[in-house]
């Protein structure tokens, strides 16, 4: 099975991500499939991040964390987040096949960001789920 993204869906997802970055103040957002294949990226610093490597490592990190959850009898962890000095990173599973990675500055509220992620999550899942 392959993931096929048609032009119309791609346009819509790109717009959603652009708007998300603008409204949330996030630095950068990236969508990857669970196998580590980067699907979309958006944000002011697109050129300065190695999106391919970030997608691969994030998918691996997510998969490994899920295995850890199973080892301790948890279905999954609801919050996946790393705090840095200059940049934080947050991971969200938006559909069974798609992971969203958001980079954001430490002065931004994590709660507010999660709310905004929640708002676009279903929309993205339905656009890429077809």
């Amino acid at each position, binding site marked *: *099975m*392959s*993931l*096929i*993204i*048609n*032009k119309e869906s*791609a*346009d819509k997802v790109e717009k959603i991500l652009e708007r998300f970055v603008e409204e949330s103040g996030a630095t950068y957002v990236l969508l990857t*499939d*669970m*196998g*580590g*294949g*980067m*699907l979309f990226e958006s944000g002011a610093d697109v050129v300065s991040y*190695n999106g*391919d*490597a970030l997608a*691969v*490592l994030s*998918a*691996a990190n997510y*998969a*490994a964390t899920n*295995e850890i959850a199973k080892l301790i009898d948890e279905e999954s962890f609801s919050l996946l987040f790393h705090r840095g000095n200059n940049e934080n990173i947050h991971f969200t599973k938006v559909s069974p*096949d798609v992971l969203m990675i958001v980079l954001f500055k430490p002065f931004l509220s994590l709660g507010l960001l999660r709310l905004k992620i929640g708002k676009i999550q279903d929309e993205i899942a339905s656009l890429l789920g077809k």
Partner: protein
Amino acid sequence: MATINLKDKSIRIKLVYYGPGRSGKTTNLEYIYNKIQENDEKQKGKMVSIDTNGDRTMFFDFFPIDLGKINGFALKLQLYTTPGQVKYEFTRRLVLKGVDGIVFVADSMASRQEANAQSFENLKENLAFHNKTLSDIKVVFQWNKRDIDENLIPLASVEEMEKTLNSKYGYTSFPASAETGLNVFKTVNYIAKETVKHVIALNDIKKG
């Protein structure tokens, strides 16, 4: 899982180097990576490695290659290795998620023939974990370490290896040396070509 983006007209496929510990999977990737860096400055993908202090791959090695166009689609390969050591079963399994093609790197040393067979069985089990079988993907065998001096270390013959691992499947195979580069590019070219053909046929992609 191959990703086909009809907007930017790109196809991304995932190739995984599988095989027992120390069979030369990472060496294959390093050889390809170094040669590409030498010859093509446009390829700027970085090699990512998650390994232990002892240089054994713990999770995977990875780098992307842009392969030009096919049927009007830009082709992007993602090359991965898996850890060969038995204890890294969980991470090995995770790397197989979404795989489109496998290079099975078998060790030609006579003493490693059982390890090759075990690893190949393990590959089938781990594909089953992702609800896949060998027939869902493309596979090529690489008989690695053919450069070793047989007077120093006994090697299994290519015929023996074919018989043990490949008699049931009849996959294409290459005697190779990841150390010297013998047939390293031939192997990757072959699996890339076959996997892309498979993905295109599977998804009915027309010229565009």
